[in-house]
């Protein structure tokens, strides 16, 4: 997938993240049970969203690196 598509995904992902942890999104998941990995569900949800953020950013950066390599750049000081 091209970098620009990943960038769009990253934007949407973090907006969904914000909506999910604030009012009113958070009210949809606001019961502690069932526990996930022993933790209350809301706490586990934030942890999962953080891991998702890591994955989305990592994929986006990888796409950028591929495109920079294809374009024959070093990928270093491309700003």
């Amino acid at each position, binding site marked *: 997938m091209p970098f620009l598509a990943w960038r769009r995904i990253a934007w949407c992902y973090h907006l969904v993240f914000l909506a999910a*942890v604030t009012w009113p999104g*958070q009210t949809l998941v606001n019961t*502690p049970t069932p526990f996930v990995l022993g*933790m209350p569900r809301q706490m586990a949800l934030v*942890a999962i969203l953080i891991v998702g953020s890591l994955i989305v*950013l990592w994929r986006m*950066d990888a796409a950028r690196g591929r495109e920079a390599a294809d374009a024959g750049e070093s990928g270093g000081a491309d700003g």
Partner: protein
Amino acid sequence: MDKFTLITVLVFGYLATTLAVGLVAGRRASKSVQGYVAGDRDFGLLVMYFITGASVFSAFAFLGGPGWAYSRGAAAFYILSYGALGMAPWYAMGPKAAALGRRFGFVTQAQLLTGRFPSRGLSVLMAVLTLISFVPYVTIQMRGAGIVIEAVTDGRIPLAAGAAIAYGIVMAYVLASGVAAVGWTNTFQGVFMLAIAWTLGIYLPYRLYGGIGPMFEQILASRPELLTVPGLDPGGNAWSWGAYSTAILVSAIGFTMLPHLFMKAFTARDDKTIRRTVVLFPTFQLFLIPVFLIGFAGVLFPESPEQPDFILPFLILRTELPALVIGLFCAGALSASMSTGDALLHAGASVVVEDGVQPFRRLSDKGQRTLIRVLVVAVGALAYVLALSDSSSLVDLLLASYGVICQFMPAVLAAMYWRRATTAGVVSGLAAGSAVAVLFFLFPEWKPLGLHEGILGLIVHVPVLLGVSLAGKPQDKQHVSAFVDA
């Protein structure tokens, strides 16, 4: 060797190592202001990662985080939520800020702003606001260091002396080595803290409840209100959704705008380093999970500390851990405090000199370095006085400082992305937004729906910035293009 002596030896051994790392690091950096403030723009991924991580791994997270989980339950989840949100925009903003820094020689956030919007008033306003937001932040770190030392030595070294010892050492290496010391000590301290936090976060629930799941089951059975968002307010009543949601929003925005984060972008070797740091940042955020587990482990503990912020050292001392573990924990918590405190002291003093003094009176390179050093001591002394007198919670102090910092967002975005922004618009927006934020901070009873004063400030700030800018004459096209198209 008795327990107290062993702990003291461990802690002082650790402090001596930190001092050595800080002093050695400084010998590699050049003697220029670029070397002292921006590390010759040569920080690689490892150091950048831990420098950024140190902004999460502060005394606030190590002591305030468990304190909140312990006393206010799910309210603490806001702390877990905002970091990843605040960091993500840096993937785009960081390399752009760094490119502008390289082109124009900026070493502070305010220089970036006044580069686009030339105004000495703006420069001073930024310096003052940065200082207003940093002092409580440094205060938090000093109190944290004092709390830890007082608790683990069972009061034999009081808070005042503990904070003085830890920050005496911080001063020594910051004064000698500048930002190079901050980078390398943060790396050393970061590794230390990660290990300690995860070990204790998993160990304490097992020791006290037989596991993480059983711990939360017992809390759910006896204190269910602690496990439902938005948790409790300081008085033990239900916290409002408005306050919880805007705490996340303000902290995320404030985090993105942290003046020292900009200064660190100017220290990076290249853009790839900045991007990789942003990508890896969420791994640091996850460290808050074991920290919260420690706080929750205290909920059903039969005794309680005098202040919630003491819960972590309190638990550790009452669960009959070996002295070695207590000593290491103490060093880990001191790392958390010092690694954030040193960066802030250095950044705060640099900002005052570069943005508050330089626009009015040009100083030589040597003069700047000397003045930064004097101010490191002055800011440190001020924070120390506040740390001894202040009794509010660590997290409340942090939230208050984010309220001011988040007012930088519209101005910084306008400088980097909005062609039509004008100096008058940015200055009036910043002044109006900050005034509103300070007003609601001083009179919290006026806040509608419990919304954070930082958000209320932004609600006034953004329209003023847009309105005044659009009403005025646009800036020169070439000048604007140098910033927006960078």
